[in-house]
């Protein structure tokens, strides 16, 4: 029952904190962040320990694809539909579970420091709820269970983005995230319908082994991919993620960098055998992934908000992972999920530490020279920076290198994808160095007020940073965590890994050098801009289109047609109701008379209708 236990521990934390929250509210007291945070964190630590034990068992068990299965109960049993509620723990789930619980626990601890005076038990409630749902997503044994988790993390994300609900902008951001995710969710729903119709099962293991008809496989794959673009912020559904930075920074680190946004990769990897049945789907995935990687990387170069840079960077890195899935190397994608979870969580938490120190300033052009004043943050951030650039021997080097290599040599590899990814990697090095230099080096450009009380963060925040820094350094040394059954056959071309390694180091070096040269001297403040204006495009085209469509429907269909139907049927129902009501006189004799009449009618019908005495 270890898997079930590890999934439900965060739920227990959620329940305890909910109780604490309501109990404090009833007594009109502020709940203590330390108490709430420790409850939530210990739930996560316990879950992490469980995950480690389960992982050890997985290693110990024999077989090609070892799996720990725990079936809890039969969830739905309607006609041909049988859905078991249970958990399945294999290598792929294990990788995600360890990240969710491990990085999750660290971020819970970090939150205690970050949210002091600003948080409440409610915050930790949501955070634990998120982890519970996320674990359901990656451990669920059937698509409906994945969907439960999928919707659940969407809900938790919505609640946390809008956590500081006094600001209208935060609420708008939360709604935007929710709505965009909904579009993707539609894809998952329809994919489930198709799976049930054609494969007759929603069980993930059986589904993965099912051979679809080629056209069905394409539609199914595209629908799954649509779902993934929503949750994992890919073109065209990525604009919610930069706005989601309105949430508290630890939330950005956990949900919008390390875990939730990678659930698309999880789903693609999980259904990899089905996805691979259609080359069209693979082509779409790799093209969209590469395009997203490039587009987000370009946009990141023009951002001045420290969190926005990291948000676009996340989108770009997710594009790398999707491209890996698309060329048929999902395991490289999953590898990058793990290393990215370490270094991106680290970068976000580091950014959070900077924001915390500067009492809320997020504009990188109002920072500078923080290297000396925030030494721990600086050194740990350096590890994250090195990892995302892909410097040897940091973890990012191994995973990014693997993706670049696979982009060329994998079964569906493609020089174009490789080229775009390589250029994105160059840009990554550029904008990350830009960020790094602007924040930590050069002259201080702090405002008087912010500069007067710069302070290093408390230990409870520093410790997670240090641990994550170690993980960012060493996370790639143990090789690929998951081996998936991918089409390894003859690649598009064969290139030695060593060449790619050298090339990617060169790319990182050039990018970093360019970034350093441009931003190490005198700084000119750059205005934030979105070179692609996707938001404006959506507002102008999609928004206006939907609006005019809506007003068309509103005017002609709604007011003209349905309203009439409703009025008529409503009047008919009303008429019926009033008619039947009139016989309700309140007089017992009247009722008796009616009932006797009914009885007589029935008897009459029986005697003359059935037995034909009348004829």
């Amino acid at each position: 029952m270890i898997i079930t236990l590890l999934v439900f521990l965060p739920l227990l934390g959620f329940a305890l904190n909910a109780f604490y929250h309501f109990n404090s509210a009833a007594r009109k007291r502020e709940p203590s962040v330390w108490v709430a945070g420790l409850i939530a964190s210990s739930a996560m630590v316990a879950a992490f320990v469980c995950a480690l034990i389960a992982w050890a068992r997985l290693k110990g068990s024999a077989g090609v694809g070892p799996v720990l299965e725990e079936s809890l109960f039969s969830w739905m049993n309607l006609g041909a539909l049988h859905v078991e509620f249970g958990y399945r723990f294999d290598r792929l789930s294990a990788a995600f579970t360890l990240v969710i619980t491990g990085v999750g626990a660290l971020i819970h601890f970090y939150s205690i420091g970050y949210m002091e005076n600003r948080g409440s038990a409610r915050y930790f409630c949501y955070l634990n709820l998120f982890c519970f749902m996320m674990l359901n997503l990656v451990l669920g044994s059937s698509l409906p269970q994945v969907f439960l988790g999928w919707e659940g993390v969407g809900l938790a994300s919505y609640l946390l983005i809008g956590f500081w609900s006094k600001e209208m902008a935060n609420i708008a951001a939360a709604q935007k995230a929710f709505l965009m995710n909904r579009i993707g969710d539609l894809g998952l729903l329809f994919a489930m319908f198709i799976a049930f119709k054609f494969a007759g099962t929603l069980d993930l293991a059986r589904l993965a082994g099912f051979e679809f008809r080629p056209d069905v496989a394409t539609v199914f794959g595209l629908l799954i991919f649509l779902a993934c673009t929503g949750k994992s912020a890919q073109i065209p559904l990525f604009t919610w993620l930069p706005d989601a930075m309105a949430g508290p920074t630890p939330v950005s680190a956990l949900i919008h960098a390390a875990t939730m946004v990678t659930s698309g990769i999880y789903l693609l990897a999980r259904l990899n055998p089905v996805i691979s049945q259609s080359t069209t789907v693979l082509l779409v995935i790799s093209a969209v992934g590469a395009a997203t990687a490039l587009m987000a990387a370009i946009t990141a170069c023009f951002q001045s908000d420290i969190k926005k840079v990291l948000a676009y960077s996340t989108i770009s890195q997710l594009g790398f992972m999707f491209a890996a899935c698309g060329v048929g190397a999902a395991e490289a994608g999953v590898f990058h999920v793990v290393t990215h979870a370490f270094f991106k969580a680290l970068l976000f938490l580091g950014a959070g530490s900077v924001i915390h120190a500067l009492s809320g300033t997020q504009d990188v052009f109002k920072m500078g020279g923080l290297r000396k004043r925030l030494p721990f943050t600086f050194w740990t951030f350096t590890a994250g920076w090195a990892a995302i650039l892909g410097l040897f021997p940091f973890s990012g080097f191994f995973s990014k290198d693997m993706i670049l290599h696979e982009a060329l040599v994998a079964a569906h590899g493609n020089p174009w994808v490789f080229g775009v990814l390589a250029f994105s990697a160059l840009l990554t090095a550029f904008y990350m160095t830009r960020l790094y230099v602007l924040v930590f080096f050069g002259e201080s450009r702090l405002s008087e007020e912010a500069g007067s009380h710069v302070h290093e963060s408390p230990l409870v925040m520093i410790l997670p940073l240090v641990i994550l820094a170690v993980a960012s350094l060493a996370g790639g040394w143990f090789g690929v965590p998951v081996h998936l059954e991918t089409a390894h056959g003859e690649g598009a071309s064969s290139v030695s890994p060593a060449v790619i390694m050298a090339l990617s180091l060169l790319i990182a070096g050039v990018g970093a050098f360019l970034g350093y040269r441009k931003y190490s001297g005198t700084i000119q403040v750059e205005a934030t801009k979105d070179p692609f204006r996707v938001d404006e495009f959506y507002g102008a085209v999609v928004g206006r289109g939907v609006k005019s469509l809506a007003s068309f429907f509103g005017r002609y269909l709604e007011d003209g047609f349905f309203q009439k139907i409703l009025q008529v049927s409503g009047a008919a129902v009303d008429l019926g109701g009033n008619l039947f009501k009139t016989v309700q006189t309140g007089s017992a004799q009247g009722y008796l008379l009616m009932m006797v009449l009914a009885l007589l009618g029935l008897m009459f019908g029986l005697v003359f209708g059935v037995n034909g005495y009348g004829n």
Partner: protein
Amino acid sequence: MSAEFDLLGPWISLCAGILLTLLISVIRTESKRPAQISALITVVGTAVLSLGKQPSEAALVFAGSFEISSLTLLVLGGLCALAAMFILGTGHYLSRERIHISDYYHLLLILVLGASVMVASRNLILTFIALEVMSLPAYTLAGFRRNDSRSNEAALKYFILGGAMGAVFLLGSSFVFGATGTLTYSGVFSASKSGGVMLELGHLLLLVSFLFKVAAAPLHFWKPDVYEGAPTPVTGIMATIITAASFLTLVRLIHMIDYGAAEMGNYLAWLKSALRFVTVASLIVGSTVMITQRSLKRLFAYSSITHTGYLMLGVLGSFDSGASASSVLIYLCGYCVMSTGAFVLLALSKSPADTGTELIDLTGLMKRSPYLTGLWTIFLFSMAGMPFTVGFFAKYFVFMASMNGGETVVVVIAALCTVVGAYAYLRAIALMTMREAAPTSGEWELTPGSQLVAVGAAVFVLFLGIIPNAMLQYLKGIPLIH
């Protein structure tokens, strides 16, 4: 004989509990608490005793008049559980209305005894006696607010109409006896092979008296008036315990006739169309009048007429095969729990009993008590048949049963009525959440006992709405008729 006593254990313990409660209420006239506790222990004990037994075979005792089977034990246990919920959840109402006297409890227990024996009976005379044992306390309880003319009126109406329909039942029994020379169900079953108009008439009369009890249109007139006049907990008891027992008896009476009998073919075809008419009439009358009501009790009265219609759908679906109508059992199970929850909440209204609780008392409840609003929403959603509540699966299965029975037109009508009904339930929710409280909106008070019961019922409703499987398998394994 001792084996029979062993089998009858749960009923005997209920009888013993009745006598004990009666004795206590005679000795301790000034305090109602001992009687309440004694009644609670009795129903809980009986429920445990009866639900603990799962006989694989039905046993007949008392010369084949009394059936002890998984169904009758489930019914006894279920009714006792419902009674326990009412005892626990509505004591405060009785105190507030100054009718909290110990007689209430043994009357309630006798009612439960009658209801459970009625379902277990396989002899028309025993059925009649049980019917009266159930009905007489119900008449008394309906008039329990002695100083309120509306309560008296309700009791009197219920009594007169119920008495008349009891006479119809007896008349039917005598016709059946005249035609077949027997009163046991099994005797009638085997005699029905030869058919005959006397038997048909008798059977029809039996059914009519029970269609009255479950308030199927056009025999529903008594229901809104009695529901409104009776004290709220008693209304709840009528809506759940009496309806459930009467409906199950109705199903068993319908299947008293052998469906394979060629001689009865014409009659059965005719009876099916008559029942189809009753189904459609109940659905349409219940759901359309429901949306014109302002009084909550009348609203629930019409709502329960609609529920009778849905239950009849399940009966229609299994009419020809005579197969066990498990969809009916599933529906009753869900319906009873959600209604109990709703009536326990309704009894929390502090509006004066003579005007009754109206829809306006719900306005702005969200601001006043979000907790209460949440509970109301769960039960109303369930009644409307929303997914993730037990009401959804209840409807799903009666609709499926009816579809499989070839009643497509009736199912379409039922689906339309669901829409009309949903309007009434959703409007109540909208009043709670979207409107400000009116100056005349009545107050609500929460008490620990009612909270316990309502939360328990809500958890049940949601649990079975999300994870229905275990319950479904259990109920599907219980044959309704033998």
